[in-house]
């Protein structure tokens, strides 16, 4: 499915602010994997997702998606293959456009855009049905501007938009971190539901170790630009938060430092 080999990324190279973030990262994602990603501050979790999505180009290494080399493919072309949900609920939707216009943009993620009508009447019924899955009553507000929705509603909508056309890989970058606990739980349930029902392959960064253990079939822990722990199957199911903390100390030689993670557990 996705195969990253020896990926490196340094920000501001050659300046006093030079910051190596990814240092020879390799990861092989299998079809149907739902991987949760945890790690300390500055471990490179978001950068890894951004390098996969093409927001940042890697300095070295290779990224293969279904055998195709996408290492140098521009962000908007990779977007045809990937679904993305950001940490900031404002980032995944266009506030001044209506709910149906946002969905229609997402519906055309995998297609060539031309001078056909931006939202065709035949699509709208499908959008209504897709929205009803969220159980937020948005199916009756198709023409409302997205800017009128709450952060949680926008994040749920972004999730729906990211999966409206089945992505080869779904990238979730701490997508519940900015939501209140109740809404976060709801969006997380929805995430699990959509991933399992649509048989998606997903990579989810989270700061919540309990969620990281509970969700998905595989867990990876990052530290200092590399993957230091990769666990799946039964072993992952039986993990405890304490085990993760201990693993981290053994592998990294220091205590786990992630402000949000410590607050959340």
């Amino acid at each position, binding site marked *: 499915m996705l195969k990253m080999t020896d990926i490196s990324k340094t920000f501001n190279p050659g300046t006093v602010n030079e910051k190596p973030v990814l240092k020879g990262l390799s990861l092989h994602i299998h079809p149907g994997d739902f991987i949760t990603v945890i790690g300390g501050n500055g471990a490179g979790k978001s950068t890894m997702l951004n390098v996969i999505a093409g927001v940042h180009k890697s300095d070295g290494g290779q990224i293969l998606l279904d055998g195709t080399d996408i290492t140098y493919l521009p962000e*908007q072309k990779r977007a045809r293959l990937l679904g993305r949900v950001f940490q900031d609920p404002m980032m995944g939707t266009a506030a001044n*456009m209506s709910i149906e*216009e946002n969905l229609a943009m997402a519906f055309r993620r995998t297609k060539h855009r031309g001078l056909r009508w931006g939202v065709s009447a035949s699509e709208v019924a499908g959008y209504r049905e897709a929205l009803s899955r969220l159980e937020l009553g948005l199916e009756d507000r198709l023409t409302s501007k997205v800017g009128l929705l709450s952060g949680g509603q926008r994040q749920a909508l972004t999730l729906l938009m990211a999966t409206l056309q089945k992505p080869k890989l779904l990238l979730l970058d701490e997508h519940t971190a900015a939501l209140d606990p109740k809404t976060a739980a709801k969006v997380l349930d929805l995430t699990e539901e959509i991933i399992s029902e649509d048989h998606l392959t997903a990579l989810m960064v989270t700061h919540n170790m309990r969620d990281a253990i509970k969700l998905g079939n595989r867990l990876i822990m990052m530290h200092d630009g590399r993957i230091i722990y990769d666990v799946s199957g039964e072993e992952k199911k039986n993990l405890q938060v304490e085990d993760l903390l201990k693993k981290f100390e053994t592998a990294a030689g220091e205590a786990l430092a992630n402000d949000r993670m410590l607050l959340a557990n």
Partner: protein
Amino acid sequence: MLATIISGTAQGFSWVLLTLGVYITFRLLDFADLTVEGSFPLGAGVSVVLVNAGVNPFLAFLIAFVCGMTAGAITGFLNTVCKIPPILSGILTMISLYSINLRIQSGRATVTFQEDTARNIIAGWLPDGFSNNSIAILVGAILAALTIAILYFFFGTEIGAALRATGNNPYMARALSVNTKAMTVLGLMLSNGLIAASGSFYAQFDYGSAIVTMGQGSIVIGLASVIIGEVLFCHKDHSFAYKLTAIVIGALIYRIVYSLALYGDFMEETDLKLVTAVIVVLMLSVPVIKDFIASRHARAVNTAKYKNGGAADA
């Protein structure tokens, strides 16, 4: 007075296309584009020179549109490829156009039509008795309606929606496979094409010549028109076609007010840049003034409530 309003309306139609162009960059693309001040005289200059060289005035109008698109493409190139900030990209194209426009006009600051303009030709088609002003209003209104219709349909298409999404949230647009650089360039081309066409219309239907400095302040005029239209007629929920129409009316109102300001003897033509700035300031301050009045009122009500020994229930 009525004559002033009519001539103001006629002049207003010269600025309608410019206003729609400014609306595309400032509101839809969220790009503060100053190319305007160069592409407006570009459209006028190209038209005069071409018509004097024997080119059909209607064709000259279309060529002016294409020249404006080219200017917009250059600003877009500077911004998206050379990564120069929007305002500076526009300024660089604008000052380049000053030199280019002088070249086009063979070094003359002013060039005047020697041959028939589109207005003269249309006047020949119409029965006698149509004044220059009424021709400008007639043609301007048809052109405005046509442009609104085209823009309405274009921004409703897949590419149009991608362009709006680019202006609204470029991160989202890229994540949904939109080439935001291409959309920025396209928006700037469309906008400056309209602005140059506006310059051509102004030269052919109103002014009769092209001056290299005629673009000075045009960005503020465009913004003033957009803001007047929005403040007076628009709500957030209005449809796109309605908004475009409101903005066109804003452009007309601006010109009428401008003409009326000149009507008396107390103001010189040279004062009008100041008048324009004051109009923009007033229109932009409307929300602040509304808030101020509302909060004053709420405060007075609240003070009165507690004045008589605290009427509020404990």
